[in-house]
Protein backbone atom coordinates (compact mmCIF):
# COMPACT_ATOMS: atom_id res chain seq x y z
CA UNK A 1 0.00 0.00 0.00
CA UNK A 2 2.69 2.47 1.03
CA UNK A 3 4.92 1.47 -1.92
CA UNK A 4 1.97 2.11 -4.22
CA UNK A 5 1.47 5.58 -2.74
CA UNK A 6 5.19 6.36 -3.07
CA UNK A 7 5.19 5.02 -6.62
CA UNK A 8 2.15 7.11 -7.62
CA UNK A 9 3.68 10.26 -6.12
CA UNK A 10 6.92 9.55 -7.98
CA UNK A 11 5.06 8.95 -11.25
CA UNK A 12 3.03 12.14 -10.86
CA UNK A 13 6.25 14.09 -10.20
CA UNK A 14 7.96 12.59 -13.25
CA UNK A 15 4.96 13.43 -15.47
CA UNK A 16 4.91 16.95 -14.04
CA UNK A 17 8.59 17.46 -14.79
CA UNK A 18 8.19 15.88 -18.23
CA UNK A 19 5.32 18.23 -19.14
CA UNK A 20 7.34 21.22 -17.95
CA UNK A 21 10.47 20.24 -19.90
CA UNK A 22 8.46 19.44 -23.03
CA UNK A 23 6.64 22.77 -22.76
CA UNK A 24 9.97 24.55 -22.28
CA UNK A 25 11.50 23.09 -25.40
CA UNK A 26 8.26 23.45 -27.38
CA UNK A 27 8.81 27.21 -27.23
CA UNK A 28 12.21 26.78 -28.88
CA UNK A 29 10.89 24.30 -31.47
CA UNK A 30 8.00 26.63 -32.23
CA UNK A 31 10.39 29.52 -32.92
CA UNK A 32 12.69 27.29 -34.97
CA UNK A 33 9.69 26.11 -36.99
CA UNK A 34 8.51 29.68 -37.49
CA UNK A 35 11.98 30.48 -38.79
CA UNK A 36 11.86 27.51 -41.13
CA UNK A 37 8.42 28.47 -42.50
CA UNK A 38 9.51 32.07 -43.02
CA UNK A 39 12.89 31.16 -44.54
CA UNK A 40 15.12 32.43 -41.72
CA UNK A 41 17.21 30.82 -39.00
CA UNK A 42 15.24 31.29 -35.79
CA UNK A 43 17.04 31.58 -32.42
CA UNK A 44 20.64 30.29 -32.80
CA UNK A 45 22.80 32.51 -30.55
CA UNK A 46 22.32 30.98 -27.08
CA UNK A 47 24.16 27.67 -26.99
CA UNK A 48 24.53 25.24 -29.90
CA UNK A 49 21.48 25.52 -32.23
CA UNK A 50 19.93 27.91 -29.70
CA UNK A 51 19.42 25.06 -27.21
CA UNK A 52 19.76 27.35 -24.18
CA UNK A 53 17.16 29.81 -25.50
CA UNK A 54 14.27 28.52 -23.29
CA UNK A 55 16.47 28.94 -20.19
CA UNK A 56 17.41 32.46 -21.25
CA UNK A 57 13.72 33.28 -21.81
CA UNK A 58 12.84 31.90 -18.39
CA UNK A 59 15.56 33.91 -16.66
CA UNK A 60 14.47 37.01 -18.53
CA UNK A 61 10.85 36.56 -17.43
CA UNK A 62 11.88 36.03 -13.79
CA UNK A 63 13.91 39.23 -13.69
CA UNK A 64 11.26 41.44 -15.31
CA UNK A 65 9.44 43.94 -13.13
CA UNK A 66 6.32 42.64 -11.39
CA UNK A 67 3.71 45.16 -12.35
CA UNK A 68 0.19 45.18 -10.99
CA UNK A 69 -2.41 47.71 -12.15
CA UNK A 70 -3.55 49.97 -9.31
CA UNK A 71 -7.24 49.22 -9.86
CA UNK A 72 -6.79 45.47 -10.20
CA UNK A 73 -8.46 42.97 -7.90
CA UNK A 74 -5.26 41.86 -6.12
CA UNK A 75 -6.24 38.33 -5.12
CA UNK A 76 -7.92 37.38 -8.39
CA UNK A 77 -5.08 38.95 -10.39
CA UNK A 78 -2.65 36.44 -8.86
CA UNK A 79 -5.20 33.60 -8.85
CA UNK A 80 -5.72 33.82 -12.65
CA UNK A 81 -2.31 32.61 -13.92
CA UNK A 82 -1.90 30.14 -11.03
CA UNK A 83 -5.24 28.54 -11.85
CA UNK A 84 -4.40 28.33 -15.56
CA UNK A 85 -1.15 26.52 -14.78
CA UNK A 86 -2.79 24.24 -12.19
CA UNK A 87 -5.60 23.15 -14.50
CA UNK A 88 -3.22 22.64 -17.44
CA UNK A 89 -1.19 20.18 -15.36
CA UNK A 90 -4.26 18.40 -13.94
CA UNK A 91 -5.30 16.49 -17.09
CA UNK A 92 -2.15 14.37 -17.34
CA UNK A 93 -3.28 12.28 -14.33
CA UNK A 94 -5.84 10.29 -16.35
CA UNK A 95 -3.66 9.53 -19.38
CA UNK A 96 -2.19 6.01 -19.66
CA UNK A 97 1.45 6.62 -20.61
CA UNK A 98 2.42 3.01 -21.28
CA UNK A 99 1.84 -0.64 -20.37
CA UNK A 100 2.50 -1.87 -16.82
CA UNK A 101 5.99 -1.95 -15.37
CA UNK A 102 7.00 -5.12 -13.50
CA UNK A 103 9.56 -4.67 -10.72
CA UNK A 104 10.32 -7.68 -8.45
CA UNK A 105 7.05 -9.33 -9.43
CA UNK A 106 4.90 -6.35 -8.44
CA UNK A 107 2.90 -4.61 -11.19
CA UNK A 108 3.14 -0.83 -11.49
CA UNK A 109 0.74 0.77 -14.03
CA UNK A 110 2.08 3.78 -15.95
CA UNK A 111 -1.06 5.80 -15.22
CA UNK A 112 -1.55 7.98 -12.17
CA UNK A 113 -5.31 7.49 -11.78
CA UNK A 114 -7.15 4.74 -13.65
CA UNK A 115 -10.66 6.00 -12.84
CA UNK A 116 -13.59 4.30 -14.55
CA UNK A 117 -14.79 7.66 -15.88
CA UNK A 118 -11.39 8.87 -17.17
CA UNK A 119 -12.75 10.47 -20.31
CA UNK A 120 -15.33 12.46 -18.34
CA UNK A 121 -12.60 13.56 -15.92
CA UNK A 122 -10.68 15.01 -18.86
CA UNK A 123 -13.81 16.87 -19.99
CA UNK A 124 -14.43 18.20 -16.52
CA UNK A 125 -10.90 19.59 -16.32
CA UNK A 126 -11.16 21.03 -19.84
CA UNK A 127 -14.44 22.71 -19.01
CA UNK A 128 -13.01 24.47 -15.95
CA UNK A 129 -9.88 25.48 -17.90
CA UNK A 130 -11.50 28.75 -18.91
CA UNK A 131 -11.63 30.06 -15.33
CA UNK A 132 -7.97 31.05 -15.26
CA UNK A 133 -8.31 33.19 -18.38
CA UNK A 134 -11.64 34.71 -17.30
CA UNK A 135 -10.50 35.56 -13.77
CA UNK A 136 -7.20 37.00 -15.01
CA UNK A 137 -8.88 39.01 -17.75
CA UNK A 138 -11.48 40.46 -15.43
CA UNK A 139 -9.16 41.17 -12.51
CA UNK A 140 -6.81 43.26 -14.69
CA UNK A 141 -9.57 45.89 -14.96
CA UNK A 142 -8.68 46.65 -18.56
CA UNK A 143 -11.19 46.68 -21.39
CA UNK A 144 -8.98 44.74 -23.79
CA UNK A 145 -8.28 42.09 -21.20
CA UNK A 146 -11.99 41.87 -20.41
CA UNK A 147 -12.89 41.47 -24.08
CA UNK A 148 -10.27 38.74 -24.43
CA UNK A 149 -11.69 36.93 -21.39
CA UNK A 150 -15.26 37.18 -22.68
CA UNK A 151 -14.16 35.85 -26.06
CA UNK A 152 -12.28 32.99 -24.45
CA UNK A 153 -15.29 31.91 -22.42
CA UNK A 154 -17.78 31.93 -25.28
CA UNK A 155 -15.32 30.20 -27.60
CA UNK A 156 -14.58 27.46 -25.09
CA UNK A 157 -18.24 26.79 -24.28
CA UNK A 158 -19.09 26.59 -27.99
CA UNK A 159 -16.30 24.21 -28.96
CA UNK A 160 -16.70 21.99 -25.90
CA UNK A 161 -20.05 20.81 -27.27
CA UNK A 162 -18.69 19.61 -30.61
CA UNK A 163 -15.69 18.11 -28.83
CA UNK A 164 -17.79 16.03 -26.44
CA UNK A 165 -20.09 14.94 -29.28
CA UNK A 166 -17.10 13.69 -31.27
CA UNK A 167 -15.97 11.68 -28.22
CA UNK A 168 -19.41 10.11 -27.76
CA UNK A 169 -18.78 7.96 -30.85
CA UNK A 170 -15.55 6.60 -29.32
CA UNK A 171 -17.42 5.78 -26.12
CA UNK A 172 -20.17 4.06 -28.13
CA UNK A 173 -17.62 1.91 -29.99
CA UNK A 174 -15.55 1.07 -26.93
CA UNK A 175 -18.40 0.68 -24.47
CA UNK A 176 -16.30 2.16 -21.69
CA UNK A 177 -15.41 5.55 -20.22
CA UNK A 178 -12.06 4.37 -18.89
CA UNK A 179 -8.98 5.63 -20.70
CA UNK A 180 -6.97 2.43 -20.16
CA UNK A 181 -9.88 0.42 -21.59
CA UNK A 182 -10.05 2.66 -24.67
CA UNK A 183 -6.32 2.20 -25.28
CA UNK A 184 -6.51 -1.56 -24.69
CA UNK A 185 -9.14 -1.90 -27.42
CA UNK A 186 -6.90 -0.22 -29.99
CA UNK A 187 -4.28 -2.97 -29.81
CA UNK A 188 -2.08 -3.42 -32.87
CA UNK A 189 -3.32 -1.36 -35.79
CA UNK A 190 -6.93 -1.25 -34.61
CA UNK A 191 -6.81 2.52 -34.11
CA UNK A 192 -9.96 4.57 -33.67
CA UNK A 193 -8.96 7.03 -36.39
CA UNK A 194 -9.72 4.40 -39.08
CA UNK A 195 -13.26 3.92 -37.73
CA UNK A 196 -13.92 7.56 -36.82
CA UNK A 197 -12.07 9.83 -39.27
CA UNK A 198 -14.79 12.47 -39.05
CA UNK A 199 -14.78 12.36 -35.25
CA UNK A 200 -11.01 12.75 -35.26
CA UNK A 201 -11.18 15.78 -37.56
CA UNK A 202 -13.82 17.48 -35.37
CA UNK A 203 -11.80 16.71 -32.25
CA UNK A 204 -8.64 18.13 -33.82
CA UNK A 205 -10.36 21.39 -34.82
CA UNK A 206 -11.90 21.71 -31.36
CA UNK A 207 -8.52 21.05 -29.74
CA UNK A 208 -7.15 24.09 -31.56
CA UNK A 209 -10.00 26.19 -30.21
CA UNK A 210 -9.73 24.82 -26.66
CA UNK A 211 -6.01 25.49 -26.42
CA UNK A 212 -6.47 29.02 -27.87
CA UNK A 213 -4.01 28.32 -30.67
CA UNK A 214 -4.03 29.92 -34.10
CA UNK A 215 -6.20 30.07 -36.19
CA UNK A 216 -8.55 30.33 -33.17
CA UNK A 217 -6.37 32.49 -30.89
CA UNK A 218 -8.98 35.24 -30.68
CA UNK A 219 -8.75 35.70 -26.89
CA UNK A 220 -5.25 37.16 -27.42
CA UNK A 221 -5.75 38.55 -30.91
CA UNK A 222 -3.02 41.22 -30.88
CA UNK A 223 -4.26 43.13 -33.92
CA UNK A 224 -7.54 43.98 -32.17
CA UNK A 225 -7.01 43.54 -28.42
CA UNK A 226 -3.36 44.55 -27.77
CA UNK A 227 -2.54 41.33 -25.90
CA UNK A 228 -5.98 39.96 -25.08
CA UNK A 229 -6.57 38.59 -21.59
CA UNK A 230 -2.91 38.95 -20.54
CA UNK A 231 -2.48 42.58 -21.62
CA UNK A 232 -1.82 43.76 -18.05
CA UNK A 233 0.40 40.86 -17.02
CA UNK A 234 4.16 40.99 -16.80
CA UNK A 235 7.05 38.96 -15.45
CA UNK A 236 6.46 35.32 -14.49
CA UNK A 237 2.67 35.73 -14.27
CA UNK A 238 2.70 36.37 -18.01
CA UNK A 239 5.17 33.51 -18.28
CA UNK A 240 2.64 31.19 -16.59
CA UNK A 241 -0.04 32.09 -19.12
CA UNK A 242 2.28 31.56 -22.08
CA UNK A 243 3.74 28.40 -20.57
CA UNK A 244 0.33 26.90 -19.82
CA UNK A 245 -0.51 27.19 -23.51
CA UNK A 246 2.41 24.90 -24.39
CA UNK A 247 1.52 22.45 -21.63
CA UNK A 248 -2.04 22.39 -22.96
CA UNK A 249 -0.67 21.68 -26.41
CA UNK A 250 1.38 18.75 -25.12
CA UNK A 251 -1.48 17.32 -23.08
CA UNK A 252 -4.08 17.69 -25.83
CA UNK A 253 -1.65 15.94 -28.20
CA UNK A 254 -1.45 13.14 -25.61
CA UNK A 255 -5.26 12.97 -25.34
CA UNK A 256 -5.66 12.84 -29.13
CA UNK A 257 -2.98 10.16 -29.49
CA UNK A 258 -4.65 8.14 -26.73
CA UNK A 259 -8.19 8.42 -28.05
CA UNK A 260 -7.62 8.17 -31.80
CA UNK A 261 -4.08 7.02 -32.64
CA UNK A 262 -3.98 3.93 -30.47
CA UNK A 263 -2.20 5.42 -27.44
CA UNK A 264 1.06 3.56 -26.84
CA UNK A 265 0.23 0.73 -29.27
CA UNK A 266 2.15 0.15 -32.47
CA UNK A 267 1.54 -2.77 -34.87
CA UNK A 268 3.99 -5.63 -34.36
CA UNK A 269 5.57 -4.18 -31.24
CA UNK A 270 4.05 -6.77 -28.90
CA UNK A 271 5.34 -9.65 -31.09
CA UNK A 272 9.01 -8.68 -30.70
CA UNK A 273 9.26 -10.59 -27.42
CA UNK A 274 10.74 -7.75 -25.36
CA UNK A 275 10.92 -8.01 -21.58
CA UNK A 276 8.01 -6.14 -19.89
CA UNK A 277 10.03 -3.14 -18.73
CA UNK A 278 11.79 -2.59 -22.05
CA UNK A 279 8.42 -3.05 -23.77
CA UNK A 280 6.89 -0.38 -21.50
CA UNK A 281 9.74 2.00 -22.31
CA UNK A 282 9.49 1.43 -26.07
CA UNK A 283 5.69 1.82 -25.93
CA UNK A 284 6.11 5.09 -24.07
CA UNK A 285 8.49 6.27 -26.79
CA UNK A 286 5.84 5.36 -29.39
CA UNK A 287 3.25 7.47 -27.56
CA UNK A 288 5.76 10.30 -27.25
CA UNK A 289 6.44 10.19 -31.00
CA UNK A 290 2.71 10.47 -31.68
CA UNK A 291 2.46 13.45 -29.31
CA UNK A 292 5.40 15.09 -31.10
CA UNK A 293 3.57 14.58 -34.39
CA UNK A 294 0.56 16.45 -32.99
CA UNK A 295 2.85 19.18 -31.70
CA UNK A 296 4.19 19.56 -35.21
CA UNK A 297 0.63 19.86 -36.60
CA UNK A 298 -0.20 22.52 -33.99
CA UNK A 299 2.81 24.60 -35.05
CA UNK A 300 2.40 23.93 -38.76
CA UNK A 301 -1.18 25.24 -38.67
CA UNK A 302 -0.23 28.25 -36.57
CA UNK A 303 2.39 29.46 -39.04
CA UNK A 304 0.30 28.65 -42.13
CA UNK A 305 -3.29 29.77 -41.57
CA UNK A 306 -4.46 33.33 -40.87
CA UNK A 307 -6.66 34.04 -37.85
CA UNK A 308 -10.43 33.56 -38.10
CA UNK A 309 -12.83 36.46 -37.67
CA UNK A 310 -14.95 36.13 -34.53
CA UNK A 311 -18.29 35.58 -36.28
CA UNK A 312 -16.68 33.01 -38.58
CA UNK A 313 -15.41 31.17 -35.52
CA UNK A 314 -18.88 31.04 -33.97
CA UNK A 315 -20.49 30.04 -37.26
CA UNK A 316 -17.99 27.21 -37.73
CA UNK A 317 -18.58 25.94 -34.21
CA UNK A 318 -22.36 26.10 -33.99
CA UNK A 319 -23.51 25.71 -37.60
CA UNK A 320 -20.94 23.28 -39.01
CA UNK A 321 -19.13 21.26 -36.35
CA UNK A 322 -22.04 20.51 -34.01
CA UNK A 323 -24.47 19.30 -36.75
CA UNK A 324 -21.71 17.17 -38.34
CA UNK A 325 -20.81 15.73 -34.94
CA UNK A 326 -24.47 14.86 -34.23
CA UNK A 327 -24.75 13.23 -37.67
CA UNK A 328 -21.59 11.26 -36.89
CA UNK A 329 -23.15 10.02 -33.63
CA UNK A 330 -26.34 8.93 -35.44
CA UNK A 331 -24.41 7.12 -38.19
CA UNK A 332 -22.20 5.34 -35.66
CA UNK A 333 -25.28 4.29 -33.68
CA UNK A 334 -26.95 2.84 -36.79
CA UNK A 335 -23.78 0.99 -37.82
CA UNK A 336 -23.30 -0.50 -34.35
CA UNK A 337 -26.97 -1.54 -34.25
CA UNK A 338 -26.83 -3.26 -37.66
CA UNK A 339 -23.56 -5.07 -37.01
CA UNK A 340 -24.66 -6.67 -33.77
Amino acid at each position, binding site marked *: MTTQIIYKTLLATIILLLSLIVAMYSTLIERKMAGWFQDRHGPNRTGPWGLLQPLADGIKLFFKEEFMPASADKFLYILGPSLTMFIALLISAAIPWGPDLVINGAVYPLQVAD*VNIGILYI*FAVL*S*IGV*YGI*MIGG*WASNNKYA*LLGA*VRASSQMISYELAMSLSIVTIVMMTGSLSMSEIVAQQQGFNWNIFYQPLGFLIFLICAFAETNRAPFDLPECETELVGGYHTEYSSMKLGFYLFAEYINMFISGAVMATLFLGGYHFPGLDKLGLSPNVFALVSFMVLFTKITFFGFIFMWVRWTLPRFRYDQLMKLGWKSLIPIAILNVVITGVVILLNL
Partner: protein
Amino acid sequence: MFTEYIFHFLSILSLFSAVMVLASKKPIHSVLFLTLAFFAIAGHYVLLNAQFLAVVHVIVYAGAIMVLFLFTVMLLNLNKDEQSQKPMWVKIMAVIAGGMLMLTLIGILRKYDIQSVQDPMTTQIGLVKNLGKILYNDYFVPFELSSVLFLTAMVGAVLLGKKEQI
Protein backbone atom coordinates in the same frame (compact mmCIF):
# COMPACT_ATOMS: atom_id res chain seq x y z
CA MET B 1 -10.25 7.93 9.23
CA PHE B 2 -8.67 9.85 6.40
CA THR B 3 -12.01 10.16 4.60
CA GLU B 4 -13.49 11.60 7.78
CA TYR B 5 -10.96 14.45 7.74
CA ILE B 6 -11.76 15.08 4.07
CA PHE B 7 -15.47 15.08 4.90
CA HIS B 8 -14.99 17.72 7.61
CA PHE B 9 -12.78 19.80 5.36
CA LEU B 10 -15.29 19.68 2.48
CA SER B 11 -18.23 20.43 4.78
CA ILE B 12 -16.52 23.48 6.22
CA LEU B 13 -15.47 24.59 2.73
CA SER B 14 -18.96 24.21 1.25
CA LEU B 15 -20.66 26.01 4.16
CA PHE B 16 -18.06 28.79 4.20
CA SER B 17 -18.27 29.39 0.44
CA ALA B 18 -22.08 29.26 0.52
CA VAL B 19 -22.13 31.96 3.20
CA MET B 20 -19.55 33.99 1.28
CA VAL B 21 -21.79 33.90 -1.83
CA LEU B 22 -24.25 36.02 0.14
CA ALA B 23 -21.73 38.06 2.10
CA SER B 24 -19.48 39.16 -0.77
CA LYS B 25 -19.85 42.75 -1.91
CA LYS B 26 -18.85 42.23 -5.55
CA PRO B 27 -21.09 40.03 -7.73
CA ILE B 28 -18.06 38.43 -9.36
CA HIS B 29 -16.78 37.22 -5.98
CA SER B 30 -20.21 35.72 -5.28
CA VAL B 31 -20.09 33.80 -8.55
CA LEU B 32 -16.59 32.48 -7.81
CA PHE B 33 -17.58 31.41 -4.28
CA LEU B 34 -20.61 29.63 -5.72
CA THR B 35 -18.26 27.75 -8.05
CA LEU B 36 -16.11 26.80 -5.05
CA ALA B 37 -19.25 25.54 -3.27
CA PHE B 38 -20.06 23.36 -6.29
CA PHE B 39 -16.56 21.88 -6.21
CA ALA B 40 -16.92 21.10 -2.50
CA ILE B 41 -20.25 19.36 -3.19
CA ALA B 42 -18.62 17.40 -6.02
CA GLY B 43 -16.04 16.27 -3.45
CA HIS B 44 -18.88 15.01 -1.24
CA TYR B 45 -20.20 12.97 -4.16
CA VAL B 46 -16.78 11.35 -4.56
CA LEU B 47 -16.82 10.45 -0.86
CA LEU B 48 -20.24 8.84 -1.42
CA ASN B 49 -18.67 6.67 -4.17
CA ALA B 50 -20.67 8.50 -6.86
CA GLN B 51 -17.83 9.44 -9.22
CA PHE B 52 -20.05 9.82 -12.25
CA LEU B 53 -22.35 12.25 -10.46
CA ALA B 54 -19.34 14.21 -9.19
CA VAL B 55 -17.78 14.62 -12.63
CA VAL B 56 -21.08 15.48 -14.31
CA HIS B 57 -21.74 17.97 -11.52
CA VAL B 58 -18.40 19.66 -12.28
CA ILE B 59 -18.95 19.60 -16.07
CA VAL B 60 -22.51 20.95 -15.95
CA TYR B 61 -22.45 23.37 -13.01
CA ALA B 62 -18.84 24.54 -12.69
CA GLY B 63 -17.94 24.10 -16.36
CA ALA B 64 -21.02 25.41 -18.14
CA ILE B 65 -23.56 27.18 -15.95
CA MET B 66 -21.13 29.10 -13.76
CA VAL B 67 -19.05 30.12 -16.78
CA LEU B 68 -22.22 31.58 -18.29
CA PHE B 69 -22.95 33.37 -14.99
CA LEU B 70 -19.42 34.76 -14.93
CA PHE B 71 -19.75 35.70 -18.59
CA THR B 72 -22.94 37.66 -17.93
CA VAL B 73 -21.57 39.40 -14.85
CA MET B 74 -18.43 40.40 -16.76
CA LEU B 75 -20.32 41.57 -19.82
CA LEU B 76 -22.66 43.77 -17.78
CA ASN B 77 -19.67 44.80 -15.63
CA LEU B 78 -21.65 44.58 -12.40
CA ASN B 79 -18.79 45.44 -10.08
CA LYS B 80 -20.28 48.42 -8.28
CA ASP B 81 -21.37 47.94 -4.69
CA GLU B 82 -24.46 50.13 -4.70
CA GLN B 83 -26.31 48.05 -7.29
CA SER B 84 -27.29 45.39 -4.79
CA GLN B 85 -28.84 47.86 -2.30
CA LYS B 86 -32.49 46.99 -1.59
CA PRO B 87 -35.05 48.75 0.63
CA MET B 88 -35.33 47.62 4.26
CA TRP B 89 -38.76 45.99 3.98
CA VAL B 90 -37.55 43.76 1.13
CA LYS B 91 -34.67 42.54 3.30
CA ILE B 92 -37.00 41.76 6.23
CA MET B 93 -39.43 39.90 3.94
CA ALA B 94 -36.54 37.88 2.49
CA VAL B 95 -35.31 36.93 5.97
CA ILE B 96 -38.81 35.81 7.04
CA ALA B 97 -39.36 33.78 3.84
CA GLY B 98 -35.93 32.15 4.03
CA GLY B 99 -36.36 31.38 7.72
CA MET B 100 -39.70 29.66 7.06
CA LEU B 101 -38.10 27.47 4.39
CA MET B 102 -35.34 26.54 6.82
CA LEU B 103 -37.90 25.66 9.55
CA THR B 104 -39.73 23.39 7.09
CA LEU B 105 -36.50 21.65 6.10
CA ILE B 106 -35.49 21.11 9.74
CA GLY B 107 -38.97 19.72 10.46
CA ILE B 108 -38.69 17.24 7.60
CA LEU B 109 -35.15 16.15 8.49
CA ARG B 110 -36.04 15.57 12.16
CA LYS B 111 -38.68 12.99 11.22
CA TYR B 112 -36.51 11.34 8.59
CA ASP B 113 -35.04 7.96 9.44
CA ILE B 114 -31.39 8.17 8.44
CA GLN B 115 -30.86 4.42 9.06
CA SER B 116 -32.88 3.48 5.98
CA VAL B 117 -30.26 4.88 3.60
CA GLN B 118 -28.19 2.13 1.96
CA ASP B 119 -24.43 2.23 2.10
CA PRO B 120 -23.19 3.46 -1.32
CA MET B 121 -19.92 1.56 -0.87
CA THR B 122 -21.74 -1.80 -0.86
CA THR B 123 -24.48 -1.08 -3.40
CA GLN B 124 -22.05 0.60 -5.88
CA ILE B 125 -25.04 2.55 -7.17
CA GLY B 126 -22.93 5.63 -7.97
CA LEU B 127 -20.71 3.91 -10.53
CA VAL B 128 -21.56 4.77 -14.10
CA LYS B 129 -22.43 1.21 -15.18
CA ASN B 130 -25.03 0.61 -12.47
CA LEU B 131 -26.44 4.11 -12.77
CA GLY B 132 -26.84 3.77 -16.55
CA LYS B 133 -28.57 0.39 -16.22
CA ILE B 134 -31.05 1.75 -13.70
CA LEU B 135 -31.70 4.94 -15.68
CA TYR B 136 -32.32 3.16 -18.98
CA ASN B 137 -34.23 0.16 -17.58
CA ASP B 138 -36.28 1.24 -14.59
CA TYR B 139 -36.61 4.96 -15.18
CA PHE B 140 -36.54 5.12 -18.97
CA VAL B 141 -39.73 7.16 -19.52
CA PRO B 142 -39.07 9.87 -16.89
CA PHE B 143 -35.48 10.16 -18.15
CA GLU B 144 -36.55 10.74 -21.75
CA LEU B 145 -39.37 13.08 -20.67
CA SER B 146 -36.91 15.25 -18.75
CA SER B 147 -34.74 15.53 -21.88
CA VAL B 148 -37.80 16.71 -23.83
CA LEU B 149 -38.39 19.25 -21.06
CA PHE B 150 -34.83 20.58 -21.50
CA LEU B 151 -35.31 20.82 -25.26
CA THR B 152 -38.54 22.78 -24.74
CA ALA B 153 -36.76 25.16 -22.40
CA MET B 154 -34.02 25.72 -24.99
CA VAL B 155 -36.50 26.41 -27.78
CA GLY B 156 -38.39 28.76 -25.47
CA ALA B 157 -35.23 30.67 -24.61
CA VAL B 158 -34.35 31.10 -28.31
CA LEU B 159 -37.90 32.27 -29.05
CA LEU B 160 -37.80 34.82 -26.22
CA GLY B 161 -34.44 36.01 -27.46
CA LYS B 162 -35.69 36.87 -30.94
CA LYS B 163 -39.16 38.18 -30.10
CA GLU B 164 -38.86 41.31 -32.30
CA GLN B 165 -38.74 39.32 -35.51
CA ILE B 166 -41.86 37.22 -34.92
